[in-house]
Structures are given as C-alpha cells and as structure tokens.
C-alpha cells in the first residue's frame, strides 16, 4: 500500500518502511526522538526528499492536497480555524455517525471550539480526518488525552478502519495499546527508525 524509500529530512536518518493494506504499524520511542518529524515528512508538510508510493503511484506525481487526503495525518495537537466545530467538517450528516462512534454527544457539532476540552479536541480532530476516508492514517498519539472509555471507542474505530483495508502508522507511548492494535512495531531513537520485535 504505502512504500517509503530513503525518506530524508533534517533531524531524521534516511528511513525506509512500508505499510500494507489492513496493517497497523506502531512507532514507539521517547519524546523528541523524531516521531512527529517522520509523520510530518510522510504527509509532506515539511521539506523532505525520498521516494514515496501509494498503491504504486509516486507522491511526486500527486498534488500535495490530494496526497494528504489519501495519506491523512492527525497531529498530537489539533488546529482549529473557525469558531464553531461544524465548520471543520465537510458534511454534518456524514459526520454524525463518526462522532457517535467516538463517544461524543451528537450536538457537539454546534459547540464553539473554545469550549472543547483537550480530549474532545483530540477526538473531533480524528473525526474530521475519518470523514475524509484516507487510505493511510498517520496518527500521532491519538489517545494521549483520553480517558479509558474514550480510548476504547477510538481503538474500536481504528480496528474497524483496519478491517476495511486502511493502513495505519501510529505513534504511542503505551506498549499495551501497541500490542492491542499493531501487527508490527518500529522503534525510533535519535531520528533513526529500526524494526522491533512483535
């Protein structure tokens, strides 16, 4: 599905990895090891070089906005550009079931963004990405601000998308979570990615 050859950017040693359809790869490592640098480079948000292919199509030949809709990135801290939550979704009707699946109340679309807690922001940020239905998800600590019930809901949504054939690369500090979701684990230390045991 997603093949990355020799990805280069400042702060990272050249990295190659691949994610298959329906596969979740966990990326583990201490803070500041370069996890976000790697995910941002794959999403092409920072200058980087390397050969990236999605289902055989080269990234260089795909306009960056199209690439990001197919290889969707969820940052650890989400950004909001409009006063109301609903303005961040394309279609409120399509968003409703996603929001429900993430354990959020249906009327939260009408809330002002400034009222959201950190955990609500994290889940709504995930929800608006899920609405785009990317082929590959790059998730940066998607449950770091959540309580156990919310974590369970998010993990269930992730498992469902995996079952539907999405590829996922996620960072986490939680070894148990990595064991629950990921078929494969990678370690990152000082900007260098290496294979780890299952």
């Amino acid at each position, binding site marked *: 599905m997603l093949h990355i050859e020799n990805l280069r950017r400042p702060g990272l040693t050249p990295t190659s990895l691949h994610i298959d359809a329906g596969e979740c790869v966990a990326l583990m490592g201490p803070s500041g090891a370069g996890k976000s640098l790697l995910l941002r480079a794959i999403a*092409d*948000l920072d200058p980087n070089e390397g050969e990236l292919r999605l289902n055989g199509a080269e990234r260089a030949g795909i306009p*960056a906005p199209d690439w990001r*809709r197919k290889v969707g990135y*969820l*940052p650890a801290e989400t*950004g909001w*550009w409009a006063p109301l939550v609903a303005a961040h979704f394309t279609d409120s009707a399509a968003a409703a079931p996603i929001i429900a699946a993430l354990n959020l109340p249906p009327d939260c679309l009408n809330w002002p963004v400034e009222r959201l807690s950190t955990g609500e922001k994290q889940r709504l940020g995930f929800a608006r*990405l899920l609405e785009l239905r990317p082929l590959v998800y790059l998730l940066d600590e998607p449950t770091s601000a959540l309580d156990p019930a919310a974590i369970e809901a998010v993990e269930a949504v992730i498992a469902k998308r995996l079952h539907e054939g999405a590829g996922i690369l996620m960072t986490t500090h939680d070894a148990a979570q990595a064991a629950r979701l990921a078929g494969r684990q990678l370690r990152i230390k000082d900007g260098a990615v290496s294979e780890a045991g299952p």
Partner: protein
Amino acid sequence: MNAIPLTYWDLATASLLLAANGVLSAILGLGIAGRLAIAALRMLVQLLLIGLVLTWLFAQQSPLWTGLAALVMIGFAGYEISARQDYALKGWWNYGLGAMSITIASTLVVMLALTTHIRPTPWYHAQYALPILGMILGNVMTGVSLGLNTLTTTARRERAAIEARLMLGASRGKALSGTVRQALRSGLIPLINAMSVMGLVSLPGMMTGQILAGAPPIEAVKYQLLIMFLIGGATGSGVILAVYGAAHRLTDARHRLRLDRLGANSGH
C-alpha cells in the same frame, strides 16, 4: 496667489516654542530631551536640504534627475517598510517585496495622474511629480508595512489552524485565505480612517498649504480629493501585491506552510 513669506527671524522666534518643550522635558526628567533635540535637528537639516534639492531639481527640468530623486524616495520607503516588520522574510525578500510593491503601485498611479489628470508640461515636471509621489508613497508605505506585518504575525500565531487545513487537503490559497484577508484589511484600514475624518477633524496638509498660498478653498479641496483617489488606488494595489507576494513566499509548491522563511527582524 502667493503665501506671505516668512523670514528666518520668524522661524527663529517660533523655534523657541520647541526649545521650551525641550527645557520642560528636561526639568520633568522625561529622559527624552536628547532625542527631542536630535529629532528637531534632523528635521531642520532634512527639510532645508530637501528645499535646496527641490529648488535645484525644478531648475534642471531633467527627467533623469527627477527620476533619480523618485528612486531615492522609493528606496527610503522600502527600507522603512522592512524596518517596521516584527518577523521579516529572510534574505532579499524582506526589502525586495515591499519595495517592489510600492514601486509598481505608486509609479503607475503617479504617471496616470500626471498624464491624464494634472497634465503639467512636460508631464514629468518635478514640481508636480515629486510632491505627488511623496504623498502617495507615504500612504502606500504605511499600508504595505501594516499588511505585511499582520500577515507574518498572524501566520505565526495561527500556524496550527493553517496547517490543520493543509493536513485535511486544503490548497495553500485556501489554508491562508483567512490570514490573507486579515492582512489586506489591516493594510487598508488607515486609508478608511483617514478618509472618514477628513474635513471634520483633519484638514489635510496639502489642502491647507494651498489655501495658505492663496488658492480658493474649493480648488484646494478638488486637489485634495484627487490626491485621496490616487492614494486609494495606490494603497489598494500596493497592499494586494505585497500581501499576496508574501503569502506566496510563506508557502511552497507542495502546499506547505514555510515559516522557516521568516526570521526575527534584526532591526528590533
């Protein structure tokens, strides 16, 4: 129609008012007496010099020298824009973008006015070209420097929001649209403010000058209106050129936000 001429003795006595201001600020310990003195001295020298330069330029009637004087004025205005930025584009962009925008906007508008509205003979007559350029430049400079400063500070502050839109597949134009709109607005607000109080609170300097020189008030008003229309056109186009140019430079062909192309301004 001639103004009542002032003697140097008149100026010397009037300057005592400013000197009294300096003495007062020294007595009150405001700590600005020195700066006040330097600024007053600068003003004195700069104005006397420009008086001599203009006299000489009017006598030459040379398009070359008039053009050169215009270039120097634009050069200083460009420098002033770059010095007023909290975060400046790195390299030549900081100076170049501001200077380019005001050059295009103000020269086009001044040439338009000289060839179609005021029509002195010859059209590049320094007595008309340079004062009009000066009035337009001052206003375009303010608008462009405010517009650029708003764009860069907003892009820095709203980085997460802008990148969130990019992450969800927005083009760079769409992701920056709110920031650009805010920058354009702040560049144009001084013009709106100036126009809405004109004649009520402020009697513009050029108009007052013409009236003092004996022109009928309504003729002076007509001149002032023409100048304000020129300023409106030049400010609008200058701000648009600068803000869209900077927005382009703050992003790249792969639709990334490139805040790494901004640096803290060394002038601060």
